[in-house]
């Protein structure tokens, strides 16, 4: 299983600060987004804007993810 931290509207829509998904090491960021939306359809409207961070850095859609990675998913940032 892969633990995915969720923040802001993504956290609210899912109703939890963490999502757990079945995972095979080497699957990509893009696949993670698809799996998350499948499991939590309320994420669908924001999928095109969802960002994924792997080990505290933004990751591109084709970046691979391992279950040992620190992974987070969230909308565009709005701090400051």
């Amino acid at each position, binding site marked *: 299983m892969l633990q995915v*931290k969720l*923040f*802001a*509207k993504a*956290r*609210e829509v899912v109703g939890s600060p963490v999502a757990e998904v079945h995972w095979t090491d080497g699957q990509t960021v893009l696949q993670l987004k698809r799996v998350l939306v499948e499991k939590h359809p309320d994420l669908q409207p924001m999928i095109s*804007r969802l960002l994924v*961070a792997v080990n*505290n*850095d*933004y990751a591109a859609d084709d970046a691979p993810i391992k279950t040992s990675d*620190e992974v*987070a998913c*969230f*909308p*565009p*940032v*709005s*701090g*400051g």
Partner: protein
Amino acid sequence: MIAMTNAPIDYHALTESVRSSQSGAVVLFLGTVREMTEGRRTMALEYEGYPQMAEAKLAELESQARSRWPIDRVAIMHRLGHLELGDISVAIAVSCPHRKQAFEAGQFLIDELKVSVPIWKKENWDDGTTEWVHPN
């Protein structure tokens, strides 16, 4: 010094931490909760952060700024949680030998913070609705 905090930001201590006799200029930026945004009235804001990544991203921004300007010291603090009108959400203090450098570095840091540091704000409008702010 880079930190996230749930407590009010002590920008006086933050500014003192960057002062030094090697620097002729200190620039402090404070972001504060503004009442009016495009004609709508804010009652309060909630800030949520991903502190571990936020601190990593801020450290990267500090490195980038140091590669562009002869920065002496930098301190950045961002508040998380519930903020009222006028409260300080972010404070950035920079010291440099000369003033132009300090202004440019300070502006770079706040501009980039808003683009890349994982912190989100939720508006509490005066009509009772709430709304996550997600810039396009």
